Protein backbone atom coordinates (compact mmCIF):
# COMPACT_ATOMS: atom_id res chain seq x y z
CA UNK A 1 0.00 0.00 0.00
CA UNK A 2 1.26 3.52 -0.78
CA UNK A 3 1.48 6.25 1.84
CA UNK A 4 -1.47 8.11 0.32
CA UNK A 5 -3.86 5.15 0.49
CA UNK A 6 -2.69 4.23 4.03
CA UNK A 7 -3.51 7.68 5.39
CA UNK A 8 -6.85 7.82 3.58
CA UNK A 9 -7.65 4.36 4.94
CA UNK A 10 -6.84 5.65 8.42
CA UNK A 11 -9.10 8.65 7.76
CA UNK A 12 -11.99 6.41 6.78
CA UNK A 13 -11.45 4.14 9.77
CA UNK A 14 -11.64 7.06 12.16
CA UNK A 15 -14.64 8.68 10.43
CA UNK A 16 -17.69 8.80 12.71
CA UNK A 17 -20.30 6.06 12.26
CA UNK A 18 -23.21 7.43 10.25
CA UNK A 19 -25.35 4.28 10.24
CA UNK A 20 -24.81 1.70 12.99
CA UNK A 21 -24.88 -1.94 11.98
CA UNK A 22 -28.43 -2.53 13.24
CA UNK A 23 -29.72 0.28 11.03
CA UNK A 24 -27.96 -1.15 8.01
CA UNK A 25 -29.14 -4.68 8.59
CA UNK A 26 -32.76 -3.69 9.18
CA UNK A 27 -32.64 -1.33 6.20
CA UNK A 28 -31.60 -4.01 3.72
CA UNK A 29 -33.87 -6.68 5.19
CA UNK A 30 -36.71 -4.18 4.92
CA UNK A 31 -35.80 -3.42 1.32
CA UNK A 32 -35.84 -7.14 0.49
CA UNK A 33 -39.10 -7.73 2.36
CA UNK A 34 -40.85 -4.74 0.78
CA UNK A 35 -39.74 -5.70 -2.74
CA UNK A 36 -40.98 -9.27 -2.27
CA UNK A 37 -44.30 -8.00 -0.92
CA UNK A 38 -44.84 -5.47 -3.72
CA UNK A 39 -43.90 -7.81 -6.59
CA UNK A 40 -45.97 -10.70 -5.26
CA UNK A 41 -48.72 -8.27 -4.35
CA UNK A 42 -48.93 -7.09 -7.94
CA UNK A 43 -49.57 -10.66 -9.09
CA UNK A 44 -52.31 -11.07 -6.46
CA UNK A 45 -53.85 -7.78 -7.61
CA UNK A 46 -53.81 -9.11 -11.17
CA UNK A 47 -56.13 -11.96 -10.16
CA UNK A 48 -58.92 -9.43 -9.70
CA UNK A 49 -57.80 -5.93 -10.68
CA UNK A 50 -59.79 -3.24 -8.86
CA UNK A 51 -58.65 -0.59 -11.32
CA UNK A 52 -58.86 -1.02 -15.05
CA UNK A 53 -55.38 -2.43 -15.62
CA UNK A 54 -53.06 -5.37 -14.81
CA UNK A 55 -49.35 -5.33 -14.04
CA UNK A 56 -47.38 -7.24 -16.71
CA UNK A 57 -46.99 -10.76 -15.29
CA UNK A 58 -43.29 -10.73 -16.18
CA UNK A 59 -42.54 -8.11 -13.52
CA UNK A 60 -44.50 -9.88 -10.81
CA UNK A 61 -43.34 -12.58 -8.41
CA UNK A 62 -44.81 -16.03 -7.98
CA UNK A 63 -45.63 -17.24 -11.48
CA UNK A 64 -49.33 -17.67 -10.72
CA UNK A 65 -51.79 -16.71 -7.97
CA UNK A 66 -50.92 -19.59 -5.63
CA UNK A 67 -47.20 -18.87 -5.97
CA UNK A 68 -47.67 -15.15 -5.44
CA UNK A 69 -49.74 -15.81 -2.32
CA UNK A 70 -47.04 -18.14 -0.96
CA UNK A 71 -44.37 -15.48 -1.40
CA UNK A 72 -46.64 -12.77 0.01
CA UNK A 73 -47.51 -14.70 3.18
CA UNK A 74 -43.90 -15.75 3.69
CA UNK A 75 -42.28 -12.35 3.13
CA UNK A 76 -44.83 -10.73 5.42
CA UNK A 77 -43.04 -12.34 8.38
CA UNK A 78 -39.71 -10.85 7.28
CA UNK A 79 -41.26 -7.42 6.80
CA UNK A 80 -43.21 -7.41 10.06
CA UNK A 81 -40.58 -8.88 12.38
CA UNK A 82 -37.78 -6.79 10.94
CA UNK A 83 -40.02 -3.71 11.09
CA UNK A 84 -40.82 -4.26 14.74
CA UNK A 85 -37.12 -4.75 15.54
CA UNK A 86 -36.29 -1.53 13.68
CA UNK A 87 -38.95 0.51 15.47
CA UNK A 88 -38.02 -0.90 18.88
CA UNK A 89 -34.30 -0.24 18.43
CA UNK A 90 -35.01 3.26 17.18
CA UNK A 91 -37.04 3.98 20.30
CA UNK A 92 -34.65 2.31 22.74
CA UNK A 93 -31.46 3.87 21.35
CA UNK A 94 -33.02 7.30 20.99
CA UNK A 95 -32.00 7.39 17.33
CA UNK A 96 -35.57 8.16 16.27
CA UNK A 97 -35.60 11.30 18.35
CA UNK A 98 -32.12 12.38 17.23
CA UNK A 99 -32.53 11.68 13.51
CA UNK A 100 -36.14 12.50 12.76
CA UNK A 101 -37.15 15.20 15.23
CA UNK A 102 -38.01 17.99 15.06
CA UNK A 103 -40.27 17.74 11.99
CA UNK A 104 -40.87 21.29 10.83
CA UNK A 105 -43.28 21.94 7.91
CA UNK A 106 -41.66 25.33 7.33
CA UNK A 107 -38.19 23.76 7.18
CA UNK A 108 -39.62 21.11 4.83
CA UNK A 109 -40.76 23.78 2.37
CA UNK A 110 -37.44 25.61 2.62
CA UNK A 111 -35.38 22.46 2.09
CA UNK A 112 -37.58 21.28 -0.77
CA UNK A 113 -37.08 24.62 -2.48
CA UNK A 114 -33.34 24.43 -1.95
CA UNK A 115 -33.25 20.88 -3.30
CA UNK A 116 -35.14 21.79 -6.45
CA UNK A 117 -32.65 24.59 -7.08
CA UNK A 118 -29.70 22.28 -6.45
CA UNK A 119 -28.66 24.21 -3.31
CA UNK A 120 -29.27 21.50 -0.69
CA UNK A 121 -26.05 20.56 1.09
CA UNK A 122 -25.12 16.93 1.81
CA UNK A 123 -21.90 17.60 3.71
CA UNK A 124 -22.90 15.57 6.75
CA UNK A 125 -24.72 12.37 5.84
CA UNK A 126 -25.53 11.91 9.53
CA UNK A 127 -27.85 14.91 9.49
CA UNK A 128 -31.09 14.46 7.61
CA UNK A 129 -32.61 17.53 6.00
CA UNK A 130 -36.32 18.21 6.55
CA UNK A 131 -37.36 16.56 3.29
CA UNK A 132 -35.46 13.41 4.21
CA UNK A 133 -36.99 13.34 7.68
CA UNK A 134 -40.48 13.67 6.28
CA UNK A 135 -39.82 11.06 3.60
CA UNK A 136 -38.42 8.45 5.96
CA UNK A 137 -41.07 8.97 8.61
CA UNK A 138 -43.67 8.89 5.84
CA UNK A 139 -42.27 5.66 4.40
CA UNK A 140 -42.37 4.02 7.83
CA UNK A 141 -45.95 5.20 8.32
CA UNK A 142 -46.90 3.82 4.91
CA UNK A 143 -45.40 0.45 5.77
CA UNK A 144 -47.45 0.35 8.96
CA UNK A 145 -50.53 1.20 6.89
CA UNK A 146 -49.66 -1.61 4.46
CA UNK A 147 -49.54 -4.08 7.35
CA UNK A 148 -52.76 -2.81 8.93
CA UNK A 149 -54.69 -2.84 5.64
CA UNK A 150 -53.10 -6.19 4.81
CA UNK A 151 -54.41 -7.65 8.05
CA UNK A 152 -57.92 -6.48 7.15
CA UNK A 153 -57.67 -8.13 3.73
CA UNK A 154 -56.26 -11.34 5.18
CA UNK A 155 -58.54 -11.59 8.21
CA UNK A 156 -61.44 -9.16 7.97
CA UNK A 157 -63.46 -11.34 10.36
CA UNK A 158 -60.78 -11.73 13.04
CA UNK A 159 -59.78 -8.03 13.10
CA UNK A 160 -63.17 -6.23 13.25
CA UNK A 161 -61.78 -3.02 14.77
CA UNK A 162 -59.19 -2.57 12.02
CA UNK A 163 -61.83 -3.50 9.45
CA UNK A 164 -64.16 -0.80 10.70
CA UNK A 165 -61.34 1.76 10.89
CA UNK A 166 -60.55 1.19 7.23
CA UNK A 167 -64.16 1.31 6.10
CA UNK A 168 -64.76 -2.38 5.48
CA UNK A 169 -63.16 -5.12 3.37
CA UNK A 170 -63.60 -3.54 -0.08
CA UNK A 171 -62.38 -0.18 1.18
CA UNK A 172 -59.30 -1.84 2.66
CA UNK A 173 -58.41 -3.14 -0.83
CA UNK A 174 -58.24 0.45 -2.07
CA UNK A 175 -56.23 1.63 0.96
CA UNK A 176 -53.80 -1.27 0.48
CA UNK A 177 -53.30 -0.37 -3.18
CA UNK A 178 -52.98 3.40 -2.67
CA UNK A 179 -50.47 3.02 0.18
CA UNK A 180 -48.47 0.63 -2.04
CA UNK A 181 -48.47 3.23 -4.82
CA UNK A 182 -47.16 5.91 -2.46
CA UNK A 183 -44.52 3.51 -1.18
CA UNK A 184 -43.38 2.67 -4.71
CA UNK A 185 -43.19 6.40 -5.50
CA UNK A 186 -41.03 6.86 -2.40
CA UNK A 187 -38.83 3.97 -3.52
CA UNK A 188 -38.24 5.47 -6.95
CA UNK A 189 -37.37 8.92 -5.56
CA UNK A 190 -35.24 7.33 -2.84
CA UNK A 191 -33.14 5.36 -5.34
CA UNK A 192 -32.74 8.41 -7.59
CA UNK A 193 -31.53 10.47 -4.61
CA UNK A 194 -29.04 7.76 -3.60
CA UNK A 195 -27.67 7.67 -7.13
CA UNK A 196 -27.21 11.46 -7.00
CA UNK A 197 -25.38 11.27 -3.64
CA UNK A 198 -23.58 7.89 -3.82
CA UNK A 199 -21.85 8.54 -0.51
CA UNK A 200 -25.16 7.68 1.18
CA UNK A 201 -25.16 4.20 -0.32
CA UNK A 202 -21.71 3.65 1.11
CA UNK A 203 -22.80 4.74 4.59
CA UNK A 204 -25.74 2.35 4.42
CA UNK A 205 -23.43 -0.51 3.39
CA UNK A 206 -20.31 0.12 5.44
CA UNK A 207 -21.59 2.51 8.08
CA UNK A 208 -19.34 5.48 7.46
Amino acid at each position, binding site marked *: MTTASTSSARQLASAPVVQPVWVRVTHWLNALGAILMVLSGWRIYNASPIFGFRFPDSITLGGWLA*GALQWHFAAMWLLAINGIVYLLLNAVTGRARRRFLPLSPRQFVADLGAALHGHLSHDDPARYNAVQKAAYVGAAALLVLMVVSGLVLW*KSVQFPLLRTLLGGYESARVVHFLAMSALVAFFVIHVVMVVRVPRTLRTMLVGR
Partner: protein
Amino acid sequence: MNQNDRIRPGTGLSRPDRQALAKDAGRLLRGPARRLFLRRGLTLGGLAMLTGCSVTDSETAESLLMAVSRFNDRVQAWLFDPQRLAPTYPESMITRPFPFNAYYGIERVPLVDTAGFRLKVGGRVRQPGSWTLEQLASLPQQQQVTRHICVEGWSAIGQWGGVAFAHFLNRVGADLTSKYVGFKCADDYYESIDMPTALHPQTLLTLTFGGQTLPRQYGFPMKLRMPTKLGYKNPKHIVEIFVTNDYPGGYWEDQGYNWFGGS
Protein backbone atom coordinates in the same frame (compact mmCIF):
# COMPACT_ATOMS: atom_id res chain seq x y z
CA MET B 1 -60.82 -19.01 -10.37
CA ASN B 2 -59.73 -18.28 -13.89
CA GLN B 3 -57.45 -20.33 -16.10
CA ASN B 4 -54.38 -18.19 -15.40
CA ASP B 5 -54.54 -19.01 -11.72
CA ARG B 6 -55.02 -22.68 -12.46
CA ILE B 7 -52.00 -23.35 -14.62
CA ARG B 8 -48.53 -23.52 -13.12
CA PRO B 9 -45.85 -21.66 -15.09
CA GLY B 10 -43.00 -23.33 -16.96
CA THR B 11 -39.51 -23.63 -15.53
CA GLY B 12 -36.33 -21.68 -16.15
CA LEU B 13 -35.41 -18.11 -16.94
CA SER B 14 -36.29 -16.79 -20.37
CA ARG B 15 -33.43 -16.27 -22.80
CA PRO B 16 -33.34 -12.43 -22.44
CA ASP B 17 -33.22 -12.82 -18.62
CA ARG B 18 -30.31 -15.23 -18.81
CA GLN B 19 -28.40 -12.92 -21.16
CA ALA B 20 -29.00 -9.89 -18.92
CA LEU B 21 -27.84 -11.85 -15.89
CA ALA B 22 -24.70 -13.05 -17.65
CA LYS B 23 -23.83 -9.48 -18.69
CA ASP B 24 -24.24 -8.23 -15.12
CA ALA B 25 -22.12 -11.05 -13.74
CA GLY B 26 -19.40 -10.23 -16.27
CA ARG B 27 -19.40 -6.57 -15.26
CA LEU B 28 -19.17 -7.45 -11.58
CA LEU B 29 -16.17 -9.70 -12.02
CA ARG B 30 -14.21 -7.34 -14.24
CA GLY B 31 -14.09 -3.97 -12.39
CA PRO B 32 -11.70 -3.66 -9.45
CA ALA B 33 -13.34 -0.55 -7.99
CA ARG B 34 -16.05 -1.04 -5.40
CA ARG B 35 -17.87 1.93 -6.84
CA LEU B 36 -18.62 -0.15 -9.93
CA PHE B 37 -20.10 -2.90 -7.78
CA LEU B 38 -22.26 -0.46 -5.87
CA ARG B 39 -23.59 1.23 -8.96
CA ARG B 40 -24.22 -1.89 -10.99
CA GLY B 41 -25.55 -4.03 -8.17
CA LEU B 42 -29.14 -2.97 -8.52
CA THR B 43 -29.60 -3.54 -12.23
CA LEU B 44 -32.76 -4.78 -13.88
CA GLY B 45 -30.96 -8.02 -14.67
CA GLY B 46 -30.46 -8.56 -10.97
CA LEU B 47 -34.07 -7.79 -10.21
CA ALA B 48 -35.22 -10.03 -13.05
CA MET B 49 -33.79 -12.96 -11.14
CA LEU B 50 -36.41 -12.36 -8.48
CA THR B 51 -39.28 -12.48 -10.95
CA GLY B 52 -37.82 -15.19 -13.12
CA CYS B 53 -39.18 -18.67 -12.67
CA SER B 54 -35.87 -20.16 -11.55
CA VAL B 55 -36.24 -18.86 -7.99
CA THR B 56 -39.86 -19.86 -7.55
CA ASP B 57 -39.36 -23.20 -9.27
CA SER B 58 -36.30 -24.27 -7.28
CA GLU B 59 -37.23 -27.17 -5.04
CA THR B 60 -35.73 -25.49 -1.98
CA ALA B 61 -37.78 -22.35 -2.48
CA GLU B 62 -40.95 -24.36 -3.08
CA SER B 63 -40.58 -26.58 -0.03
CA LEU B 64 -39.70 -23.55 2.10
CA LEU B 65 -42.77 -21.68 0.90
CA MET B 66 -44.99 -24.71 1.57
CA ALA B 67 -43.49 -25.03 5.05
CA VAL B 68 -44.32 -21.39 5.75
CA SER B 69 -47.85 -22.00 4.47
CA ARG B 70 -48.25 -24.86 6.94
CA PHE B 71 -46.86 -22.64 9.70
CA ASN B 72 -49.44 -20.04 8.71
CA ASP B 73 -52.12 -22.72 9.18
CA ARG B 74 -51.08 -22.97 12.83
CA VAL B 75 -51.03 -19.19 13.22
CA GLN B 76 -54.49 -18.93 11.68
CA ALA B 77 -55.82 -21.67 13.96
CA TRP B 78 -54.50 -19.65 16.91
CA LEU B 79 -56.05 -16.42 15.57
CA PHE B 80 -59.43 -18.07 14.92
CA ASP B 81 -61.96 -17.01 17.55
CA PRO B 82 -64.81 -19.55 17.66
CA GLN B 83 -67.09 -16.89 19.15
CA ARG B 84 -66.37 -14.11 16.69
CA LEU B 85 -69.08 -13.64 14.07
CA ALA B 86 -68.53 -12.47 10.53
CA PRO B 87 -70.43 -9.29 9.65
CA THR B 88 -73.96 -9.72 8.30
CA TYR B 89 -75.73 -7.38 5.92
CA PRO B 90 -79.25 -6.25 4.98
CA GLU B 91 -80.87 -8.02 2.02
CA SER B 92 -80.63 -4.76 0.06
CA MET B 93 -76.86 -5.24 -0.12
CA ILE B 94 -77.01 -8.67 -1.75
CA THR B 95 -74.89 -8.73 -4.91
CA ARG B 96 -77.20 -9.19 -7.88
CA PRO B 97 -76.48 -11.17 -9.86
CA PHE B 98 -74.32 -13.22 -7.50
CA PRO B 99 -71.23 -14.26 -9.44
CA PHE B 100 -70.78 -17.79 -10.76
CA ASN B 101 -67.32 -19.13 -9.94
CA ALA B 102 -65.72 -22.54 -10.51
CA TYR B 103 -62.58 -24.06 -11.96
CA TYR B 104 -64.56 -24.81 -15.13
CA GLY B 105 -67.11 -23.00 -17.27
CA ILE B 106 -70.80 -22.72 -16.38
CA GLU B 107 -71.73 -25.24 -19.09
CA ARG B 108 -69.97 -27.96 -17.09
CA VAL B 109 -71.79 -27.44 -13.79
CA PRO B 110 -72.89 -30.91 -12.59
CA LEU B 111 -76.55 -31.88 -12.84
CA VAL B 112 -77.68 -33.72 -9.71
CA ASP B 113 -81.02 -35.51 -9.55
CA THR B 114 -83.12 -34.21 -6.64
CA ALA B 115 -85.23 -37.29 -5.88
CA GLY B 116 -82.47 -39.85 -6.21
CA PHE B 117 -79.87 -37.84 -4.34
CA ARG B 118 -78.39 -39.19 -1.12
CA LEU B 119 -75.83 -37.37 1.01
CA LYS B 120 -73.33 -39.95 2.22
CA VAL B 121 -72.05 -39.45 5.80
CA GLY B 122 -69.16 -41.46 7.19
CA GLY B 123 -65.89 -41.57 9.03
CA ARG B 124 -65.65 -40.95 12.77
CA VAL B 125 -69.41 -40.67 13.35
CA ARG B 126 -71.72 -42.83 15.46
CA GLN B 127 -74.53 -42.73 12.84
CA PRO B 128 -73.02 -43.10 9.37
CA GLY B 129 -75.46 -43.45 6.52
CA SER B 130 -77.26 -41.39 3.93
CA TRP B 131 -79.62 -38.44 3.99
CA THR B 132 -82.21 -37.27 1.46
CA LEU B 133 -82.68 -33.58 0.77
CA GLU B 134 -86.08 -33.79 2.45
CA GLN B 135 -84.56 -35.14 5.63
CA LEU B 136 -82.01 -32.34 5.66
CA ALA B 137 -84.71 -29.73 5.03
CA SER B 138 -86.64 -31.02 8.03
CA LEU B 139 -83.80 -30.12 10.39
CA PRO B 140 -83.87 -26.63 12.01
CA GLN B 141 -82.99 -24.08 9.32
CA GLN B 142 -81.06 -20.80 9.61
CA GLN B 143 -80.47 -17.88 7.26
CA GLN B 144 -77.51 -15.60 6.78
CA VAL B 145 -76.57 -12.69 4.56
CA THR B 146 -72.78 -12.63 4.55
CA ARG B 147 -69.82 -11.58 2.43
CA HIS B 148 -68.20 -14.23 0.24
CA ILE B 149 -64.52 -13.30 -0.19
CA CYS B 150 -62.58 -14.95 -2.99
CA VAL B 151 -58.84 -15.60 -2.70
CA GLU B 152 -58.51 -13.55 -5.89
CA GLY B 153 -59.58 -10.49 -3.89
CA TRP B 154 -63.14 -9.80 -5.04
CA SER B 155 -66.12 -10.24 -2.78
CA ALA B 156 -69.90 -10.59 -3.10
CA ILE B 157 -72.71 -10.55 -0.55
CA GLY B 158 -75.10 -13.49 -0.71
CA GLN B 159 -77.99 -14.99 1.19
CA TRP B 160 -77.86 -18.64 2.19
CA GLY B 161 -80.14 -20.83 4.25
CA GLY B 162 -79.63 -24.28 5.70
CA VAL B 163 -78.74 -26.43 8.68
CA ALA B 164 -76.30 -25.27 11.30
CA PHE B 165 -73.39 -27.60 10.62
CA ALA B 166 -72.64 -28.01 14.34
CA HIS B 167 -76.21 -29.24 14.80
CA PHE B 168 -75.79 -31.67 11.89
CA LEU B 169 -72.51 -33.02 13.22
CA ASN B 170 -74.15 -33.62 16.59
CA ARG B 171 -77.10 -35.36 14.89
CA VAL B 172 -74.79 -37.87 13.20
CA GLY B 173 -72.83 -38.36 16.42
CA ALA B 174 -69.59 -37.01 15.00
CA ASP B 175 -66.45 -37.33 17.11
CA LEU B 176 -65.93 -33.60 17.74
CA THR B 177 -62.38 -34.16 18.95
CA SER B 178 -61.41 -35.15 15.41
CA LYS B 179 -59.22 -32.79 13.45
CA TYR B 180 -60.93 -32.61 10.05
CA VAL B 181 -64.24 -32.71 8.27
CA GLY B 182 -63.86 -33.73 4.62
CA PHE B 183 -66.12 -33.16 1.63
CA LYS B 184 -66.51 -34.83 -1.74
CA CYS B 185 -68.39 -33.05 -4.50
CA ALA B 186 -70.27 -33.97 -7.65
CA ASP B 187 -67.85 -32.00 -9.85
CA ASP B 188 -64.72 -33.82 -8.61
CA TYR B 189 -63.98 -30.95 -6.24
CA TYR B 190 -62.93 -31.95 -2.74
CA GLU B 191 -62.22 -29.97 0.42
CA SER B 192 -61.54 -30.29 4.12
CA ILE B 193 -61.83 -27.95 7.08
CA ASP B 194 -60.69 -27.80 10.68
CA MET B 195 -63.15 -28.95 13.36
CA PRO B 196 -63.29 -25.57 15.20
CA THR B 197 -64.50 -23.88 12.01
CA ALA B 198 -66.95 -26.74 11.35
CA LEU B 199 -68.52 -25.98 14.73
CA HIS B 200 -68.62 -22.19 14.27
CA PRO B 201 -72.16 -20.79 14.67
CA GLN B 202 -72.17 -19.31 11.15
CA THR B 203 -71.05 -22.52 9.40
CA LEU B 204 -74.13 -23.67 7.51
CA LEU B 205 -74.84 -26.72 5.37
CA THR B 206 -76.91 -24.69 2.92
CA LEU B 207 -79.81 -25.87 0.78
CA THR B 208 -81.16 -22.49 -0.34
CA PHE B 209 -79.85 -19.32 -1.87
CA GLY B 210 -81.85 -16.09 -1.84
CA GLY B 211 -84.70 -17.99 -0.24
CA GLN B 212 -84.95 -20.43 -3.19
CA THR B 213 -83.61 -23.94 -3.60
CA LEU B 214 -79.85 -23.67 -4.16
CA PRO B 215 -79.54 -23.14 -7.92
CA ARG B 216 -77.44 -25.56 -9.92
CA GLN B 217 -74.76 -22.96 -10.70
CA TYR B 218 -74.45 -21.97 -7.01
CA GLY B 219 -73.89 -25.51 -5.75
CA PHE B 220 -77.03 -27.71 -5.81
CA PRO B 221 -77.68 -29.94 -3.90
CA MET B 222 -75.80 -28.27 -1.05
CA LYS B 223 -72.90 -25.96 -0.26
CA LEU B 224 -71.05 -25.58 3.01
CA ARG B 225 -71.11 -21.86 3.70
CA MET B 226 -68.45 -20.47 6.06
CA PRO B 227 -68.16 -16.67 6.19
CA THR B 228 -65.03 -17.23 8.30
CA LYS B 229 -63.21 -18.78 5.34
CA LEU B 230 -62.28 -17.79 1.79
CA GLY B 231 -64.52 -18.83 -1.10
CA TYR B 232 -62.55 -21.85 -2.30
CA LYS B 233 -62.91 -23.38 1.17
CA ASN B 234 -66.74 -23.39 0.77
CA PRO B 235 -67.42 -26.59 -1.21
CA LYS B 236 -70.44 -26.79 -3.54
CA HIS B 237 -72.34 -29.77 -4.96
CA ILE B 238 -71.50 -31.79 -1.82
CA VAL B 239 -72.31 -35.50 -2.14
CA GLU B 240 -70.32 -36.90 0.79
CA ILE B 241 -69.23 -35.68 4.25
CA PHE B 242 -66.78 -37.54 6.48
CA VAL B 243 -65.05 -36.90 9.80
CA THR B 244 -61.41 -37.93 10.02
CA ASN B 245 -58.02 -37.47 11.65
CA ASP B 246 -56.19 -38.11 8.36
CA TYR B 247 -55.51 -34.92 6.43
CA PRO B 248 -57.85 -35.07 3.40
CA GLY B 249 -56.34 -32.10 1.53
CA GLY B 250 -58.30 -30.03 -0.93
CA TYR B 251 -58.57 -29.41 -4.67
CA TRP B 252 -56.71 -26.08 -4.55
CA GLU B 253 -54.54 -26.81 -1.49
CA ASP B 254 -52.97 -29.78 -3.23
CA GLN B 255 -51.84 -27.31 -5.89
CA GLY B 256 -50.27 -24.86 -3.46
CA TYR B 257 -53.03 -22.75 -1.96
CA ASN B 258 -53.14 -22.35 1.80
CA TRP B 259 -55.22 -24.98 3.65
CA PHE B 260 -56.68 -23.00 6.56
CA GLY B 261 -57.79 -20.21 4.22
CA GLY B 262 -59.42 -18.27 7.03
CA SER B 263 -60.89 -14.80 7.02
